[in-house]
């Protein structure tokens, strides 16, 4: 069997805030179409890793190679345009705009000032919005003000906004926080569905949920990789049990 191609290679990544190394000489490799889950105790540097990959935080040292691009030298919008999508921990949507408008703004054309002025709501855009809305089960809510959605629906909307851009690498920070059991199930299905033709990095705490979606799990601790492998392997690792999973 041929080895799968790498889509993301993080090597020697370090960031220090006033001497405190939030991420310390981290290596992380993600393959094409892989769904990687990153777990770890609070303050392990999970969110910081995503921030570093998407350019929100600048690395002190190390490299982030996405396909053949060096992301540490690129600006945030350029990283997004290269095909990296990022969902934030708290649902980050435009509360005052309708669900339709939220999705429309994420459509990946007309991203310059004049492109925006001349942007037309073509049939393509409308079709894509409806397609994504169906995917995230919000087709009935398209005209609703996004602020009126439930917490879980807001999470879906943000995932939908990322899907509009059709990114090759999708990074989700705690996508099921604040969701009901039923919503968690639907989200697991959604992630499994959209993960078929793209790579994903998901940060999550809910072990049952992680088991449902993860191809491979990385455990972070104090900014370093503590363990990596399948869910079963990681859960059996004594060091992981010690620092994270508990006794």
């Amino acid at each position, binding site marked *: 069997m041929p080895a799968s191609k790498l889509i993301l290679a993080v090597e020697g990544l370090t960031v220090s805030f006033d001497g405190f190394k939030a991420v310390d000489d981290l290596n992380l490799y993600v393959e094409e179409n892989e769904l990687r889950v990153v777990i770890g105790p609070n303050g392990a540097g999970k969110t910081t890793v995503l921030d570093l990959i998407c350019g929100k935080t600048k690395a002190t040292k190390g490299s982030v190679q996405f396909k053949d691009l060096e992301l540490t030298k690129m600006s*945030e919008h350029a990283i997004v345009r290269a095909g990296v999508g990022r969902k934030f921990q708290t649902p980050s949507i*435009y509360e005052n*705009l309708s669900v339709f408008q939220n999705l*429309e703004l994420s459509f990946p054309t007309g991203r310059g000032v004049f492109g925006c002025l001349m*942007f037309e*709501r073509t049939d393509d855009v409308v079709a894509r919005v409806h397609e994504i809305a169906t995917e995230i089960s919000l087709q009935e809510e398209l005209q609703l*003000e996004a602020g009126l959605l439930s917490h879980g629906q807001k999470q879906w909307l943000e995932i939908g906004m990322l899907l509009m851009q059709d990114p090759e690498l999708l990074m989700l920070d705690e996508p099921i926080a604040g969701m009901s059991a039923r919503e968690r199930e639907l989200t697991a299905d959604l992630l499994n569905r959209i993960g078929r033709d793209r790579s994903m990095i998901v940060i999550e705490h809910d072990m049952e949920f992680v088991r449902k979606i993860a191809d491979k799990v990385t455990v972070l601790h104090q900014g370093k990789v503590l363990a990596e492998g399948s869910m079963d392997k990681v859960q059996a690792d004594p060091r992981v049990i010690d620092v994270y999973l508990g006794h």
Partner: protein
Amino acid sequence: MRTIFRTATGGKQGMISLAILAAVLIVVFPLFFDIFRLNLIGKYLSYAFIAIGLVMLWGYGGILSLGQGVFFGLGGYCIAMFLKLEASDPITTKIQSTPGIPDFMDWNQITALPLLWQPFHSFTFSVFAMLAVPTLLAFIIGVAMFKRRVGGVYFAIITQAIALILSVLIIGQQGYTGGVNGITDLKTLHGWDIRTDNAKYILYFVNVALIILAILSCRWIISSKLGLLLLAMRDKEDRVRFSGYDVANFKIFVFCLAAMLSAIGGAMFTLQVGFMSPSFVGIVPSIEMVIFAAVGGRMSLEGAVYGTLLVNFGKTFFSESFPDLWLFLMAGLFIAVVLVFPNGLAGLVGTWINRRKSRTATRTTQAAPSDGWQRGANSNEPDLKTNHDSLPATKPQGI
């Protein structure tokens, strides 16, 4: 479908309010006021350009600039320089030690026209400079600030500093700028005497036409994706950035737009009032301009015009009768706007219209249930607001 969404922000309601404004400015004011008062209104309307710019910049863009006087002044000075050169021909200035240069230069022992002034012999260049110089300055400030992600209060303070710098610079360079008196005694534009009643009428109507054009252009921008994006940026800037947009560019654009509008206002001011001075550039006038927009409602283009007119009527009226009291009244007005009606006059009118509408809507939906669906399909946002407001409005009826 496309056109419905495209016009959603302006729509029928937007057209009606613009038509009312146009009727007031074109028909009512000229009918009821003599040319002296009308010229005064024209002067106020030149400030309205700044307020319209602030609606775009502050209301939609969420960027508070306390230095719009800079751009108003620069626009005004560009036109004033042209008019001054025309008024300083060698024959009328023959008693000066150097005839043919502006009088204030002569008083300051300057013996030749400075290089900076040379191109302002050309009207085309002056108009171009009037538009380009303030926009370019805004562009430079914008790049320096927004690319470094300076925003909020820091940006407001920096714009204040720039307003102070420019006014001090103009006052200090008396020989080149006319100093604290500004550039005065402007007479003709290509031989056309701008001081006659006839010219004042024409300039008033040109001003009104430009105001309407400015509102239409801004409404077009608001109804494009850019307008939506500005609202999105105000709400969640990071989400916009991580949707692949370079946020700084949009801020620079809207800052340049507001600057250019202010500059047009400055030019119209110079033409109608006949002078330009540093008293329109500094910190205090720049803050006053923000109050115009706040009183009118910072999300309403027409509201900005009404707000400007109202505050200035008030200023003229009170400062004629109680000159000391006016500043306190102005401050009180600003506090009242912030505390009691944060969306300004336009917000008050909007609530009133929505309340009336929802009252009639509840009546008609009882008769014809399809009405609600139609309004929902046409535009989304106003409809939501109506639904919110209908709660308190319908309650008393129920009781």
